[in-house]
């Protein structure tokens, strides 16, 4: 699904060689400030980041592609701190992003309301301004709605648990596990043991300055017990 070779982000990380396969769930961990969020945003093509090396998604080289081209191929990034845009409602946003025709609106609105209800968001969530006057947890849930409603093949979620309460974490875990199939890939940046446990990832990667350390779930257990210097 996604393959990074000799991948480097100027002044952040270098020497990254890793493959994320289809039908798998991955967790990325790393010390504060090491560049986990930056890595995800660089894969998505954030213009302010200077990258070298190769990044391929579905065998297509990404490095020269615009951000929206990557998104339209099925890549999705869930922001750690989603941007607020007053004057644009949550569903209006979905409508624009999915370029919905008149006949498609009702079905999509019902789907939107169904997910927001499962996530215990307010009844009028579709009409609320995009990430405006929303709590941190509500913003994260909104990112999840977008991910589920778009044609996402690769989901990269940056600390989706932050700001969520206990019930929210449960809903998040359920929705992500339900979404994950043999045709898509989930990458989650998190330090939260309950989420890691709930997602039951196929692999854990620990990001270092000049390489990545990979392992199974026991790697996370080791980090929780002994810290990042132990790996």
């Amino acid at each position, binding site marked *: 699904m996604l393959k990074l070779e000799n991948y480097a982000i100027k002044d952040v990380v270098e020497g990254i060689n890793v493959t994320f396969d289809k039908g798998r769930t991955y967790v990325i961990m790393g010390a504060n400030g090491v560049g986990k969020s930056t890595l995800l945003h660089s894969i998505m093509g954030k213009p302010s980041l200077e990258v070298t090396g190769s990044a391929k998604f579905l065998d297509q080289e990404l490095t020269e592609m615009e951000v929206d081209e990557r998104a339209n191929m099925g890549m999705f990034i869930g922001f750690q701190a989603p941007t607020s845009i007053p*004057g*644009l409602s949550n569903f209006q946003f979905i409508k624009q992003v999915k370029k919905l025709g008149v006949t498609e609106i009702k079905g999509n609105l019902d789907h939107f309301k169904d997910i927001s209800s499962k996530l215990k968001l307010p009844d009028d969530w579709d009409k609320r301004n995009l990430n405006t006057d929303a709590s941190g947890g509500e913003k994260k849930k909104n990112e999840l709605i977008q991910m589920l409603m778009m044609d996402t093949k690769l989901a990269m979620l940056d600390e989706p648990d932050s700001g969520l309460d206990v019930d929210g974490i449960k809903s998040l875990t359920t929705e992500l596990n339900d979404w994950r199939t043999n045709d898509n890939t989930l990458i989650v940046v998190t330090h939260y043991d309950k989420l890691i446990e709930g997602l039951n990832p196929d692999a854990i990667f620990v990001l270092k300055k000049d390489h990545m350390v990979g392992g199974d779930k026991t790697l996370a257990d080791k980090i929780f017990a002994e810290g990042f210097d132990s790996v």
Partner: protein
Amino acid sequence: MYKQLFGAALLESSPGAENYFTLEQIADYVSTDSYIDGVDFNYWSSKLPQYNKTYKNNLIDLKAQGLPTSKSEQYNFANLRKLYNLEILDAPDVQYDMERFSYLADKYKTIVLNDSRLITTNDLGKKAPFNIQILDSIHVNKNRMSEYIQLLNQEENLSKLTYALTPFPNVIVFPSGSKDTFKKTPIDIKYLNSTEDPVLDCNTTIFDIQYNAKVQLNETVKTSAGQMNYSMYILRENAELTINRTSRDSGGWNIFDSVFICHPGSKLTVNFTNTGSQYTQENFYIKSSRKTEVSINGKNNIFRGNNYHQYVHQKSDDSDNYSSIDIKNVGKEFASTSFIGRYDVGALSVNFDGSMNNENLMLDKNVKMHTRPILDIHTKEIKCQHGCTVSNVNDEHMYYLQTKGLNKTQATDLLIESFLC
């Protein structure tokens, strides 16, 4: 109208040749002694002496003041050099395409204003109980028109020129008995040019909303040539007026002075949108009496290379007035915009509650946007606030929208839409 009245005499035009003039030349011409003295001999001078007196005084004032300069507060940021260099075609050679207005035959409750001509749909022209009344050069009522004409004694000098070029103003009266008829079924007012040749059309219009009447006007300003509009709206006691004004660039330019006289208990709402043009100046002058409510809401998306300049001035001389001015401008490449807002709150205007906001979004580095709020307060018992901002497109917003699959153009359009919302 001045073209019909003074024809070929204007600036010694040569028959058959295309002659171009500037606004300054036209202003100079109507300020000459021979022109001013000539007013005494025109058709209306004996029939409507008050018209003659007010019009002549206006010309004398215009001669004394001249056209505004950038030293005038309301034109500090305006591009007057561009305005005064616009070429205006002498009218006699122009073929007017009145067919443009033939669509009115299939419409209801619509009025076209075109170079002092007032063209209405059939339902509005009829004499019927509580229908609107029209006073123009055809429907003359000496006493009533004399009263209205006296009100056209404005201080602002571009409206003086508009009036100078519109010797016979039109009056539209909404009687008290109409109650909310014209709110439920609004009137469409269209300010249109009849040609795409670069002529200058002028309209001076008085709208009288009589006491307790509730009126909605849906105004369309489409300028395919030059247009100078001077509209006065009189809101009598407890009257309500809502104006939804859309101004679209059709290749011309436009000066629009709107004067609102708000009597006690009246309520005024103006919602407007504008695309700008090669030169647009939109001014609002609001005079509030007592217990008036004023709400001015602008959402202007100024197209590439267009100019849009605005001055909003509210004068409050009595107590318990409420005012909200909220104007948003988006400027695309090479656009130039300015906003100057002024509250004049007099010593007797206690409990004035005012809020003035102007937000500007620049979509490109070469856009010029100016904003200036002015609050001149002469009493203590008030609530007043202002907020004016100029900002660029937020890169984080752009990136966020792009990560969801929108390209740069789609993301920009969505950001404009949400900004103006």
